[in-house]
């Protein structure tokens, strides 16, 4: 559908005032997979957002919800991108009820400033998205971005307890609440976590908080991938409760400030001093028995490792990024196969052994066509799946980045139809180009 951009902009201006932009530089900066939108607008509150969605819906304009723009490489290229709706003005911490261990945050707030406010009351949000200065709460939740500490704290779906959203029709709805246990009605939050802005626009999220740990540190064990696999097995057979267990390989170790090795296993421990000391002691002993060299990192060195891990694949440095998700015990096996397939070509990886998430990055996007189907097949052997997270638009056009359609696709398509009958929200970007 071709839209009359002038008329649409006029109508949006009528509803939103000066928050409607059309200068080419701004629009180019909001291209999605090369598709440049006609209009960018930034509603100041939910009622303006409702109005904007109603207007776009009436003109059949494709809406691209926009947080910090840090996860726009996710998904298939949109079929249309007419109006970028930025959440940047919904950027407040609504409430931090520290005695309840919860916080309610507007969708456009960035993660780093939020963490600063929470830290003032010795709490934090246990989600570590890449580039936290720019990534927003809404984007993190909509794209279901999980970090290394998911092992200890759960994923986005586990930490979100309430939400407000505006549907494609412009109707505002809410789901869940601010209590940690709540079974009233369907758990609508689950549908919006990871829906990539295709069911509605999230305007506010309530999360469970975690107390800031008394102390923290990282044990790094270096050796062969096989040795790392043994250490992971020993660790999970023990009663230890690490916050993150991550294998890095290729030049990721160097970027993280670590000595080069075939594989480096980074284990994050946090909590009471004596509990962290115990983790360090036990893990060093296990690693020693398996013949791995270890070092203990704290302060800046600890942060450097985990920031590198966190930002991996999202920093635009790699032309092709895959995420392979498998049950826990398959992680190192998947890595071994992947390394075999690349046969010497540079492959960088970050693999979360405690959650079953393997991130792979290739320098040559030309390999995607050959690689992606192999990774999909490899993941499927383990009841898992592979997603092409980032690639140049021309490459993305040739595949469905989400892999083969899920078995329940018909239900998903019907869900999309119920919530966005005209298909205006992020058209084409989600599974099977929903």
């Amino acid at each position, binding site marked *: 559908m071709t839209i009359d951009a002038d008329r649409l902009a006029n109508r949006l201006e009528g509803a939103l005032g000066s928050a409607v932009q059309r200068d080419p530089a701004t629009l180019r900066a909001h291209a999605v997979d090369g598709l440049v939108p006609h209009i960018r607008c930034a509603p100041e509150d939910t009622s303006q957002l409702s109005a904007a969605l109603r207007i776009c819906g009436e003109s059949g304009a494709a809406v691209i919800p926009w947080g910090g723009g840090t996860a726009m490489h996710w998904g298939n290229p949109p079929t249309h991108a007419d109006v970028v709706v930025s959440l940047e003005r919904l950027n407040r911490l609504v409430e931090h009820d520290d005695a309840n261990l919860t916080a309610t945050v507007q969708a456009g707030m960035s993660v780093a400033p939020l963490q600063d406010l929470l830290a003032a009351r010795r709490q934090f949000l246990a989600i570590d998205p890449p580039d936290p200065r720019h990534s927003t709460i809404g984007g993190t939740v909509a794209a279901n971005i999980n970090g290394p500490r998911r092992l200890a704290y759960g994923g986005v779906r586990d930490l979100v307890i309430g939400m407000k959203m505006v549907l494609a029709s412009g109707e505002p709805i809410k789901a869940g609440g601010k209590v940690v246990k709540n079974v009233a009605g369907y758990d609508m939050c689950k549908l919006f976590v990871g829906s990539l802005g295709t069911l509605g626009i999230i305007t506010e999220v309530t999360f469970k908080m975690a107390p800031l740990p008394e102390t923290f540190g990282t044990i790094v064990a270096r050796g062969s991938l096989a040795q790392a696999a043994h250490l992971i097995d020993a660790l999970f057979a023990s009663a230890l409760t690490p916050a993150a267990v991550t294998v890095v390989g290729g030049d990721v170790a160097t970027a993280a400030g670590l000595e080069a090795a075939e594989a480096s296993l980074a284990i994050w421990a946090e909590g009471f001093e004596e509990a962290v000391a115990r983790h360090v002691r036990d893990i060093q002993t296990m690693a020693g028995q398996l013949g791995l060299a270890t070092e203990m990192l704290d302060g800046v060195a600890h942060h450097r490792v985990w920031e590198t891990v966190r930002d991996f694949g999202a920093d635009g440095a790699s032309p092709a990024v895959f995420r392979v998700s498998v049950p826990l015990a398959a992680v190192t096996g998947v890595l071994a196969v992947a390394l075999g397939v690349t046969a010497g070509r540079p492959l960088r990886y970050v693999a979360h052994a405690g959650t079953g998430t393997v991130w792979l990055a290739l320098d040559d996007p030309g390999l995607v066509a050959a690689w992606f189907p192999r990774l999909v097949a490899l993941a499927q052997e*383990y009841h898992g799946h592979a997603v092409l997270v980032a690639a140049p638009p021309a490459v993305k056009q040739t595949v469905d980045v989400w892999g083969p359609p899920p078995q329940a696709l018909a239900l998903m398509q019907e869900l999309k139809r119920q919530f966005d009958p005209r298909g205006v929200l992020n058209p084409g970007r989600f599974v099977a180009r929903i």
Partner: protein
Amino acid sequence: MNRDSLVRELRQIVGDEYVLVEKEDVIVYEQDGSIMQVLPEVVVLPGSTEQVAGVVRAARRANVPIVPRGSGTGLAGGAVPAEGGVVISLARMNRVLECDLRNRIAVVEPGVINLDVTKAVAAGGFFFAPDPSSQAACSIGGNIANNSGGPHTLAYGVTTNHVIEIEVVLDDGRVVWLGGRAPDPPGYDLCGAFVGSEGTLGIVTKAVLRLMRSRESVRTLLAIFDRMDAATQTVVDITGAGIVPAALEMMDRLTIEAVETGAPVGYPRDADAVLLVELEGVRESTERGARVVQEICVRRGARGVRVAQDDAERLRLWKGRKGAFGALGALAPNYYVQDGVVPRSRLPEIMRQIADISARYHLRIANVFHAGDGNLHPNILFDIRIPGELDKVIAAGEEILRACVAAGGSITGEHGIGLEKKAYIGMLFSDVDLDAMAKVRKVFDPDGRFNPAKMFPTPITCAEMRRAPAKIPAGLWI
């Protein structure tokens, strides 16, 4: 419906002995743990996914409702066939199909009893975290439908956090898998939306459960308080100090009186509240955590704090808590349990409000609850033989729920809406919010065949609904 032809068809699908129609057979299925009773028309006990699908298709052809049922311990009337039709009991599908400890998952059929999952994996050093107090009887299918919690879900999360994939039979008999064994399966999180849908979206026929590694050390403390305010403030302080206990349970004066009358464990009868705190983790964490909790209790004026020195003592400390529900019978012939939730920060004031409601209605209310997550269980004591008494109880219960909502909470933390609270869901959600849920219903069950008249407000209830106290099986607590 043409009942005879439907029954004939059902018999062909599951076998004669698994289709019940006689009153003396179906009467067992007329109630769950709530006070609602409706005699089922037909009860079917399928033995496989294919049979469930066949039964669903037959019911659809006959255009009758379908009501899934697990163990019937639900407290909101969820398994009661309010509008007639076919009750599908999943009790025969009770096999643990696979325990894959390296991947930390178990695959089970829906009729498996909650406790049996942990029993199957305990020797390998694992457990299934959601532990409803009814875990000796309730089924995994019921847990999934109600998104059940338990005392230890404070630290580990409720059912939805531990169910990663489910096989479900849809309204047309289609069988689909939702979710996945690996994290973040592409597409909408339909497994997440299904958990907690109270049997209104389809029938769970298999589930892949997440297992957790057993903790190395457990520390249990029991603190006695002279004032409820001090006890609730202690809960707020423990959370505020950055301690996340595995369990944090509370009992009030009336509950203490019930325990000491019915099944004494040695609580001082003049105490106003008992707080039970359990910490789990590596030894170093639980030791320090226990010290901090003890200090907070003392600072808030606890009369005494006991720390269990061994397993036997730990069980003794839990004994009063586990016996509380059963002991209420020592105080009154009947009790009616509510399930409101408040933000933990609002516990002190909600307990005062409940005391006030109790006084105004002249009804005694015994509170025994999951204080750590703000999930109240006010048990309103009464005698059903006194005319009008039950209605008064229900009115008092409603007022408690209103107070919870006003405090920023919810009307149910774990028991579900079911028949019982469907008229109250509007306290929380607007018509537009409910309409969004109705869209989800349409996706899965466009004709509204599964568990009609549950969860959402409906103008009429067709079948005659009787009310009577449920018989709670022995070995369950609340």
